[in-house]
């Protein structure tokens, strides 16, 4: 509808991923040994997992030379991921930082 001149006639690879989200979630839980305490928690994590499948698809489009998909972090929101697995503080290099001498790079 958006562009009558160009019409996509083949499915995108990751559409398949989203269509079978439930099966992928079961496989994800088995692979990474994930268990959830309550059904509510399970349902919430499944929602996050589906959002991450869509995110992986977006990343794949932006980063075509890598493969993006399900990882051990697929049941975490981006903020949970940042809070629990990153940890580099904001930085402005100090003015007195010791600068490495310039090395020759020819030959």
């Amino acid at each position, binding site marked *: 509808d958006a562009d009558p001149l160009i019409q996509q006639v083949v499915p995108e690879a990751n559409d398949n991923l989203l269509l079978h989200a439930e099966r992928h979630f079961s496989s994800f839980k088995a692979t990474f040994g994930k268990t959830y305490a309550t059904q509510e928690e399970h349902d919430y994590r499944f929602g996050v997992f589906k959002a991450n499948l869509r995110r992986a698809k977006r990343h794949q489009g932006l980063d075509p030379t890598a493969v993006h998909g399900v*990882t051990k972090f*697929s049941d975490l929101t981006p903020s949970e991921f940042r809070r629990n697995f*990153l940890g580099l503080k904001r930085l402005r290099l100090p003015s007195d930082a010791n600068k490495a001498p310039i090395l020759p790079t020819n030959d």
Partner: protein
Amino acid sequence: LPTDFDWRDKGAVTPVKDQGSCGSCWAFSATGALEGAHYLQTGELLSLSEQQLVDCDHECDPEEFGSCDSGCNGGLMNNAFEYTLKAGGLEREKDYPYTGTDDTCKFDKSKVVAAVSNFSVISTDEDQIAANLVHHGPLAVGINAVFMQTYVKGVSCPYICGKRIDHGVLLVGYGSSGFAPIRFKEKPYWILKNSWGQSWGEEGFYKICRGHNSCGVDSLVSTVASLHTS
């Protein structure tokens, strides 16, 4: 400079570690750099203690508010080198094992096996980064990790990626021509050791393209030199 280079092939890189649910990437990046420097100094590859940094390193950058190292709540590799320099060194992993939680400091100076003699920040020029990698061993680097949550394999080269660095990793090598059919030419890449276990990425490693400070990978690069301890 060699066209391809990898410290893993030369025995300077310990197996991939797992920081667990703890923002201690900075500690793993720092120990990785010192493990490599110690290997270059002594020929012996030792796994060093991140937990010592998590528990005992509260070093601050005096010029930046809130930049103190604080265990699972984050830190900076350069602060960690400063702490290690002042404390006298790091213990072995097995003497001060990783728990992935903040705890009280149990540092025993008599168990120090690797010490820092000096550390420096490296120019953002990629040839200088490569030269320092080859001459001085694996380098502690910061990166924007937004694409790493969904990364599975291959060389990551996002068209758009933030430059605000939020994750500490270890630069262990580079390749000259690994990818880029979509860009119609072979492109070089960096090889980064991560601390999310072997089940993430390419057996714990991440490849990112070289050439244009992709995801801020060139903006915070540090080299450390080891002091020989007997």
